[in-house]
């Protein structure tokens, strides 16, 4: 793993505290029968913050993220996204969030610009808006020449960047990234994080789950889930101090090794 030091330009502490938090949860809980997948999650995420959501497989990350996206109804507790309630205002929430899955979720048999056009289109952007956005994204990504290339012909790193750009094409308040850097090399991952910083600088809140502990260091704050509960939540620097380790890998391991649940 190369030594990559992120140049964090926008941090949670820099963000003016006057803006209300964009994600607020209070004892958010999801049960599947007897099994409590997510147990009393309480946290807040500020506007423009990069919030890392860590946890071993089966710890409850996906369940938590699905509740926040409005895909799963919580069993109890409260949560609001961009000021909207996850129980009653899921349709409004959907307009304000973006989502990128670990599979990148692009259509291989469509061209780069057709993919942008499609995703912008289903968010209800008008045709002139879509045209403008397509041109802007292609330019930002340096993919102007590849506009008419099928996505299947793009290298993995480009697909990933395109998938991220597409997920924020409709200018959401918050974007949820579900293990967005799986399967790509460290250099490409570093470039990908540049895109994330760029988006955060423009005020987009980033909620990201990851397995890579070096990426945890890039986040403003991280939460670590163990067995459905949030075991730790703070900035990487303070977490390292608190647990007396010099890297996040050891902090995570100390917390996660006590897990009783098996990975799914």
């Amino acid at each position, binding site marked *: 793993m190369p030594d990559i030091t992120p140049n964090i330009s926008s941090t949670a502490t820099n963000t003016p505290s006057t803006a209300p938090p964009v994600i607020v949860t209070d004892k958010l809980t999801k049960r599947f029968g007897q099994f409590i997948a997510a147990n009393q999650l309480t946290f807040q995420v500020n506007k423009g913050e990069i919030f890392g959501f860590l946890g071993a497989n089966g710890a409850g990350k996906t369940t938590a993220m699905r509740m926040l996206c409005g895909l799963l109804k919580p069993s109890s507790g409260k949560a609001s996204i961009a000021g909207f309630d996850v129980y009653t205002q899921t349709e409004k929430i959907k307009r304000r969030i973006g989502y990128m899955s670990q599979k990148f979720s692009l259509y291989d048999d469509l061209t780069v610009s057709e993919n942008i056009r499609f995703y912008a289109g*289903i968010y209800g952007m008008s045709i002139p808006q879509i045209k403008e956005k397509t041109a802007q994204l292609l330019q930002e990504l340096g993919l102007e020449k590849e506009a008419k290339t099928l996505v299947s012909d793009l290298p993995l790193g480009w697909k990933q960047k395109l998938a991220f750009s597409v997920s924020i094409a409709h200018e959401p308040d918050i974007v949820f990234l579900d293990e967005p850097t799986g399967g790509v090399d460290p250099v490409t991952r570093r470039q990908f994080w540049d895109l994330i910083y760029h988006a955060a600088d423009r005020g987009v809140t980033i909620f990201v789950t990851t397995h890579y502990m070096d990426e945890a260091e890039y986040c403003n704050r991280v939460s670590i889930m163990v067995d459905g509960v949030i075991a730790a939540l703070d900035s990487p620097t303070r977490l390292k101090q608190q647990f007396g380790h010099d890297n996040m890998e050891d902090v995570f391991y100390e917390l996660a090794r006590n897990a009783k649940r098996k990975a799914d």
Partner: protein
Amino acid sequence: MQQLLTFIRKEFLHVIRDRKTLLMLFGLPIAQIVLFGFALSNEVKNSRIAVADYSKDPVTTQIINEIASGNYFDIQRTLQSAAQLESAFKKGNIRMAVIFPANFSNDLTHTGKATIQVIADASDPNLATTITNYITRIINNFNTQTALTAGQPLQIIPEMQFLYNPELKGAPNFVPGVMALVLMLVCTMMTSVAIVKEKELGTMEILLVSPFKPIYIIISKLAPNLIISIVNLFIILILSALFLDLQVKGSILLLTFDSMLFILTSLSIGLLLSINAKTQQAAMMASLMGMMLPTMLLTGFLFPIENMPVALQVLSNLVPSRWYFIIVKKVMLKGLGITAVWKETLILAGMCLLLFAISLRRFKIRLQ
């Protein structure tokens, strides 16, 4: 609305980009028609037969000419004795022999009744039945003709009747079957695969997180398949009119309407299959095994339902293609109108609504 159009446009791009599948979709009805229409024909042409005429009078000559004139029979030889007859059968030169007894003419003029002996090689029973049916028809025709001219009814052999298919053509029965089969296959398979593909790609998650309505996803997925199926329907109708000489006798409008009902029913089944299938292969297998077999076996186009065990007869009522098959036969072959098919149409419409409602409900549940 514009969101919906964006999605439908995307679905069409998927279909157009996938050349192989597209070729298969339109190749399927053509291949089926060719296969059933020509290669797997029930019709038997140019069967080699022998004739033994011991009467040798104008009537027998006339009948022999009638037999020789069609393209069903090829009179290989005329026989002089019973021994020749046996050897001809043993060598396999002929499939059937027609024998006019010596007193044939005599009987006919005096009693108005006479018999012709028809001996068929029954080692292939279906073939034997078919060609004896042909000869029966030719002789019946001859009876009717002479009755008209002579004003005197003649009885040569027992009368037989073939309703709606007087020429014993193979086509009338299989074309409605091919229609049911092709529409069912294309609709269920393409729909289920198209939806499962989104799940496999991970794009379904994105769609569910987006404000795009689930019903729009369903409509967009159904749209291309609906159009492909209607095109397929007309390909089949045109092919059978051009090459099988089988025109739609009834109202094309009614036939199209009922076909749309059947297409929508099949699309809903595809939707239902996609909800439970996790991979494209699983969806395809479910469509093939779950839909193709019941369609082939329980529709009545390969095997008559009346001959099946009661349990299967009851089960066949649940197969949508069974009702569609009846409708097509009535409208296309018999030229009957809505008064004859309203019951089947109603059953099909009920199935369509029920299946669509269930799949819509199940599809929504997945989002929660």
